[in-house]
């Protein structure tokens, strides 16, 4: 790993100032960034750790919205979002293993936008708002493809706001070695529509499965998905599963999610 300067600010304002330096980068829980640095795939001049920024760690719920601080650990979301948004808490509790969940953060996961990560599916299916130190971004405009987001260099995710659905569920088929999602499907039913987001499957990263959304908005029942097939065209093919396999899993997991959301 190349060396870098290390800064540990106490407030968001200090973190924003520290990130003004060229090639400075945010450090969240480090569960993705540290392995990347070890492989010398990144060479920041400075790491600005959010570990000391207490104001970025919270789970609050009010008026049908759950707001989560950008540096909140997965384990905290699993515990504190359980009452206001159980499907989201359940997703957080399935990420990696307990030690990863104690360090990894929601902001880091959404900033990284790994095509197999769990949180992007919850953010997209919930129509969440990603709040940064400078603006608010709708989930529909935020995810721009594998490992790519609308964030600018040095932009910090300070909060993520999830409108709580009437019913929701996340089904994850884990890749047993990495513990990421081979495919994961998040289904969320709101008063006027149903949103379905799929992770792990597509070369373009997380996506909304609009055919399934249309069918489920008509009638929220697993049976309506029997004849709706996910297109295999842009799906990932690797040693863990072919594109056709991932397309098939997408359908199976979506039906299971609808049934479990009950």
């Amino acid at each position, binding site marked *: 790993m190349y060396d870098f300067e290390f800064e540990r600010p106490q407030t968001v304002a200090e973190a924003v100032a520290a990130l003004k330096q060229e090639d400075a980068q945010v450090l969240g829980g*480090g*569960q993705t960034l540290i392995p990347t640095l070890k492989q010398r795939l990144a060479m920041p001049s400075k*790491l600005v750790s959010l570990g000391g920024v207490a104001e970025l760690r919270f789970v609050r719920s009010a008026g049908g919205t759950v707001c989560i601080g950008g540096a909140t650990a997965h384990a905290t979301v699993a515990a504190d979002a359980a009452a206001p948004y159980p499907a989201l808490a359940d997703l957080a509790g399935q990420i990696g293993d307990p030690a990863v969940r*104690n360090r990894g953060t929601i902001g880091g996961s959404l900033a990284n936008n790994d095509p197999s990560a769990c949180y992007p599916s919850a953010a997209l299916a919930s129509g969440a708002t990603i709040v940064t130190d400078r603006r608010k971004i709708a989930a529909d405009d935020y995810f721009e493809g594998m490992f790519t987001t609308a964030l600018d260099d040095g932009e910090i995710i300070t909060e993520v706001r999830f409108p709580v659905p009437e019913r929701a569920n996340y089904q994850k088929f884990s890749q047993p070695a990495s*513990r990421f999602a081979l495919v994961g499907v998040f289904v969320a039913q709101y008063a006027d529509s149903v949103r379905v987001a799929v992770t792990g499957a597509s070369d373009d990263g997380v996506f909304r499965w609009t055919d399934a959304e249309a069918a489920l908005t008509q009638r929220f029942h697993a049976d309506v998905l029997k004849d709706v097939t996910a297109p295999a065209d842009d799906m990932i093919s690797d040693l863990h599963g072919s594109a056709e396999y991932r397309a098939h899993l997408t359908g199976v997991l979506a039906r299971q999610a609808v049934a479990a959301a009950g």
Partner: protein
Amino acid sequence: MNKVEMTVNGKPVSGEVEGRQLLVEFLREDLGLTGTHVGCDTSQCGACVVHMDGKAVKSCTMFALEAMNADVITIEGQAAEDGTLNTIQQAFQDHHGLQCGYCTPGMVMSAAALLRDNPKPSEAEIRQYLEGNLCRCTGYHNIIRAILAASGQEVAPMEVE
């Protein structure tokens, strides 16, 4: 170089570290606490698990500077001063929960974190909690039995195969 200060196994410690120095390197190389192992260095195996402010973390995937002013507990903090093993360690010995012992420090630290949150876990809960701790030797069964025993639960005698 940066100055780092923390408490390790109840004792205040300090040192000079580079930004990139990992917590596990600080523990092993600077403090000589070599009980914490590095199995993979890629956050997969859990041999490096320690507790920071009461939570299990992988010390190979944290910088020493992130533990500034924190309370760190390692495997060396488990046995009593006179070397008497704690309940979890003794159960690992009694139930043959280790063979080569490489994974054991991480297994014991993860087990300790589990039992603090969930004093009487089921076998399924133990297996799930240990998802991030790999053992190449034991096949896990005896580790699970040891943790069940350490939590005061009945452990069926091993069947002769």
